[in-house]
């Protein structure tokens, strides 16, 4: 069983596989360029002190996203992960 959630709801330590981006235009392009492409694995590194932005690790690079963006990127958690 897999659960699809927005990246913004994942917690540090979790790894997600990106399914889709519900964004368009420049921001979509930008995120794709940074490596947030469907199929890519994203590891949630850590939250900033106020909880936003959150640092993600995607194809060997750390990128911080605000909730505004991360809430529109959807990924699946591997089955059984809590």
């Amino acid at each position: 069983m897999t659960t699809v959630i927005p990246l913004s709801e994942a917690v540090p330590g979790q790894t997600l596989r990106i399914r889709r981006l519900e964004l368009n235009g420049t921001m979509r392009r930008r995120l794709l360029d940074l490596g947030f492409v469907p199929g890519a694995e994203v590891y949630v590194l850590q939250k900033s002190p106020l909880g936003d932005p959150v640092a993600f690790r995607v194809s060997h690079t750390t990128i911080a996203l605000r909730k505004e963006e991360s809430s529109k990127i959807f990924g699946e958690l591997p089955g059984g992960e809590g």
Partner: protein
Amino acid sequence: MMRHCCENGASCHHKNPSDQKGKTTRFRVALAGNPNTGKSTLFNALTGLRQHTGNWPGKTVLRAEGTYSFKDVTYTVIDLPGTYSLYSNSADEEVARDYIVFEQPDVTVVVLDATSLERNLNLALQVLEMSERVVVCLNLMDEANRKGIRIDDRKLSSKLGVPVVKTAARDGKGLTELKETVEGVARGHIQTRPFRIRYSDEMEEKIKTIEADIRTIFGNDLPSRWIALRLLDGDPSLTEALKKRIGKEESTDGAIAQPPYPAEA
């Protein structure tokens, strides 16, 4: 024409190397690459102290330019800003894009981090859509070897349709081979056939129509397929850059400001 290196006459030269005074041939080589690929290390290794820096015109983006000699020919190297892409809207990406598309260096070297190819190939594919004369440089090979990463450069080269050279710029490794390869592409001794993504039939049809218009307006100087793709994408920053160019061309030959639509459309 856009000109920006003219404060220092010695470094200024135009697209066609043969119209330089005297018989000196000069080639222009642009370095493109993601941030942290060792691009600037490579730039320094190639040019040594023969370099100067400034800003790109109208932008607070650093412009570094230098030269090296190889077999009695001077190569001017332009270190483009490090970017993940050439599509989005940062000043860095605009500078790099405009240089490759409008200034058309004799060779564009795409510097890739050999330890992170998946991420880096995104930019390589974009440059391959923009230019014919491309060399792919797999840098940080020392680090890749240490990590146990093996790269089949021949296979990569045949897939991408351009030469691939492995380097470790930090240790000066592979630089001679890179210079040889750059020379080969600059002189046309090495034929390239850059990999171009084929899009859906519907897209390809539209590309064809727009390409024809682009050639009517700009001639064969600009990468028409790439521009067609950007226009289909609705890229406002490129549209602006093109408009400026049309304005300039018309003011030089006195033509009327009306886009010449082809009769066949």
